[in-house]
């Protein structure tokens, strides 16, 4: 993993000192809120419905045990004993007091973490495949590149006042676990004739106008990454619309100008600035690649694991659902579900954070990851250790075997916390998960991604949910629209709206009808919800959602 250098430490200490003074000036009246707001946002501090909220970046979703313990300490000392992991690999504290925030930032700095550029019209936290460095299917670990991008984009003088926020995601595998096609820039490490480079995608995004990103460069040599990224953001900074907030993201710039025009301009700018990157970035990247070298994987006998797998159906179910293939012999990637049925998606208590940190330290080469699906990952676990890990997780309420299933729901904070929300998300997720658990159909239903956003900004990624739910305010009442057939993977697609929305009380039964209809419609247990939807089209699913209309048609 990357460890902060003296330069990083000094930079962060100076930023935190500045912000502490800014908070003091706001409190003593020297700064108005209009003056203070952009300063607090630059440091990740929002004002939400009931309280302030501090959004802390977890760059490319990677944490060590010490960092996770510090997040737990912060949650206990300055918040209400828990944190919320988000779809952008951040953690949010929902109840900080203004006077405490400088201390919280200092505590983060102690473990090499910060909240810089987790808000504002800047390049945000660079996200990555949460299985990076561990996945059996990857070409290369995307995290050295993500760290290079983090260092390049942090406080980048040209890009502090972009037309709008700017999000970059990186993956090293063809299987897209980082939703790169829904990012302003999506990078996929690929290999061509033995050389590593990038497939570069631009102009993806969700929100009010969802767009799947377009390929701007099929193969970019690895050494050209920073000048090329800088060229893209430069062109966007010049062309991006500042007249209309809703048309300011690069997806609109690409859409309005066309990918060919954007490509020409980016390539021209790239040619201009390529010489400004004579190799210091590549020297740094080489150091970063060494820092992210894989741990020394151990060889251990698998007898106890095999016995437990055969004898214990609960353990077997958890392994089958929550443990993914690892590149190293005998190892697995453990996804710890933060989606116990009825729990708040993405929330972890301080005790749970500490337990996960302990497990990572004892059994997981000291590494943890946060996924955009709001779960925690132990990326390097030997299968021999899985029985004890599972037992410990179960004791802490973290043993739910539902990763990738119907109750592994992404939900934004919604109107329980967020000032922008138009409806609640969390209770809908809780109720759907509880209902699915009551019906005992989760494992029968199989792979299904339900994603819920509490407003059109789509933090809950509803457009790319196999079932998407969007909470709106319709004439002063919460109303939930359903989209179907969305996909956030390498076969990305934007879901289609199914029809009129449902009330708060009617949305969970509607989702239940939809899932039960799928079980009737599918061509055997192997056909997933998404495959069935693609084969059959929306009609039979709409019929399940709107049975009254069906009756009216039949009459």
């Amino acid at each position, binding site marked *: 993993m990357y460890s902060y250098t003296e330069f990083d430490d000094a930079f962060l200490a100076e930023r935190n000192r500045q912000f502490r003074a800014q908070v003091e000036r706001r409190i003593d009246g020297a700064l108005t809120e209009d003056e203070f707001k952009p300063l607090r946002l630059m440091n990740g501090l929002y004002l939400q419905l009931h*309280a302030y909220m501090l959004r802390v970046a977890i760059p490319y979703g990677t944490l060590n045990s010490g960092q996770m313990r510090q997040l737990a300490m912060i949650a206990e000392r300055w918040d*209400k004993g828990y944190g919320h992991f988000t779809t952008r690999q951040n953690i949010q504290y929902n109840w900080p*007091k203004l006077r405490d925030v400088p201390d919280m930032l200092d505590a983060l700095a102690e473990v090499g973490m910060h909240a810089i550029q987790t808000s504002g019209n800047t390049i945000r936290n660079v996200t990555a495949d949460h299985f990076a460095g561990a996945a059996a299917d990857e070409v290369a670990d995307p995290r050295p590149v993500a760290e290079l991008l983090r260092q390049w984009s942090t406080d980048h003088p040209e890009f502090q006042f972009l037309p709008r926020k700017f999000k970059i995601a990186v993956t090293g595998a063809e299987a897209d676990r980082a939703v790169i096609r829904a990012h302003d820039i999506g990078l996929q490490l690929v290999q061509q004739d033995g050389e590593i480079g990038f497939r570069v995608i631009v102009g993806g995004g969700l929100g009010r106008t969802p767009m799947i990103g377009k390929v701007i460069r099929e193969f970019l040599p690895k050494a050209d990454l920073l000048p090329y990224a800088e060229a893209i953001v430069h062109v966007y900074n010049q062309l991006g619309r500042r007249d209309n907030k809703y048309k300011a993201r690069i997806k609109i710039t690409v859409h309005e100008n066309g990918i060919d025009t954007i490509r020409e301009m980016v390539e021209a700018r790239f040619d201009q600035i390529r010489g400004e990157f004579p190799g210091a970035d590549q020297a740094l990247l080489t150091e970063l690649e060494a820092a992210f070298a894989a741990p020394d994987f151990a060889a251990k006998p698998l007898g106890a694991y095999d016995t437990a797998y055969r004898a214990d159906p609960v353990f077997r179910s958890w392994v089958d659902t929550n443990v993914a293939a690892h590149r190293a012999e005998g190892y697995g990637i453990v996804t710890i579900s933060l989606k116990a049925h009825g729990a708040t998606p993405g929330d972890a208590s301080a005790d749970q954070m500490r337990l996960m940190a302990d497990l990572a330290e004892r059994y997981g080469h000291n590494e943890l990851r946060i996924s955009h699906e709001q779960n925690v990952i132990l990326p390097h676990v030997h299968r021999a250790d899985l029985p004890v890990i599972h037992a410990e997780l179960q004791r802490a309420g973290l043993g739910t075997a539902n990763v990738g299933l119907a109750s592994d729901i992404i939900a934004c904070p919604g109107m329980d916390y967020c000032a922008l929300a138009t409806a609640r998300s969390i209770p809908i997720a809780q109720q759907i998960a509880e209902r699915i658990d009551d019906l005992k159909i989760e494992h029968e239903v199989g792979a299904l991604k339900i994603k819920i956003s509490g407003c059109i900004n789509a933090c809950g990624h509803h457009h790319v949910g196999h079932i998407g739910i969007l909470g709106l305010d319709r004439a002063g009442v919460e109303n939930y629209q359903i989209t179907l057939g969305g996909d956030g993977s390498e076969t990305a697609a934007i879901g289609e709206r199914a029809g009129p929305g449902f009330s708060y009380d009617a949305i969970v039964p509607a989702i239940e009808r939809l899932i039960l209809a799928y079980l009737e419609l599918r061509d055997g247990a192997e056909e997933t919800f998404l495959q069935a939807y693609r084969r059959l089209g929306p009609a039979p699913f709409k019929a399940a959602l709107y049975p009254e209309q069906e009756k009216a048609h039949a009459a």
Partner: protein
Amino acid sequence: MARRFTPKVVTANALLDGDVVYLTADDHWTRDHTKAELIEDEAHAAIRLLDAQARQSEIVGAYLADATAGPDGPEPVHFREAFRTRGPSNYAHGKQVEPS
């Protein structure tokens, strides 16, 4: 005929802890919606909002929210404002468990 004015309260978040506050008739900030000043006159509402916005050292983001008279004082009209009087629905945190 002019559109009928919907009664309002002035609401904001407290500067130091972010909690939801309401302006009272005697120029205090209360954390209790029922103790807010229910403003029934449009011109008076505009003046009260200006009063509130001038108090930068106490609050952030003052605005007028629809309200209605209830047996114990003003009550929120919109569900968003109702949530602001209570706190989140997933945990017993915020106003629903804290004495105002």
